[in-house]
């Protein structure tokens, strides 16, 4: 897929662990791992909103389009 999830980059920038983020946004670490490893098929607006809120960033910082 051409959409890349740069969640690990943002997590490193904010010095936050995956487990901490999962707890903050209320999803399981397994689901967050699916998202981080680009195995996910879709992302809910509510999840994106929670991630952006927790990491203090915009969707563009997390999602990237590569041709």
């Amino acid at each position, binding site marked *: 897929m051409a959409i890349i999830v740069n969640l690990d980059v943002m997590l490193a920038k904010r010095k936050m662990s995956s487990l901490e983020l999962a707890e903050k946004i209320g*999803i399981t670490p397994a*689901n*967050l791992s*699916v*998202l981080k490893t680009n*195995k*996910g*098929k*879709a*992302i*809910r607006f509510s*999840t994106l909103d929670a991630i952006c809120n927790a990491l203090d960033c915009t969707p563009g910082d997390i999602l990237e389009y590569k041709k």
Partner: protein
Amino acid sequence: MKILGKKSLSSAIEKGLVVLLILGIFITISVGMWIILDWEKWMGFFLTKTIFIAYLSSLPVLIMVVEFIKIFQNLKNEKAFDKQNLKFLKVSYIASFTICAIYLINTFILLLDTKWIDTFIVYPMLMAIIAIVFFFFGIGLIVLTEIYKKAIQFKEENELTI
């Protein structure tokens, strides 16, 4: 009434199919033995060719029953949208079309036997009806397989939506 899971309709159907499979294997072997032992009697019978060809259809029928047992086992274990079921359905529709082909051949063999055709026109008609039934059953299974494939895709998509 419970459809999926243990002590459900699927479980009862699975048990019924196992009994049917055992009966089917027993009948297939018995008829085979009967034909071999009474070979001379069979050779003089005008329906010998058609009975031999119809006998061949027992193999795809048994394969189909085995596949349905596997499907109902999965339904019993609440694995309704399992990718394995697609394989089982595919084998089932191939078996169904094989039976259809066997009975079509049988119909033509009976129609070509002009010696008996006037007296026993009901036999080719019966064979043709069986062929048609299995043809449409096969088509139905193909449609079901496609619907199942879509359902599995939707399930996977739903599971991977975070």
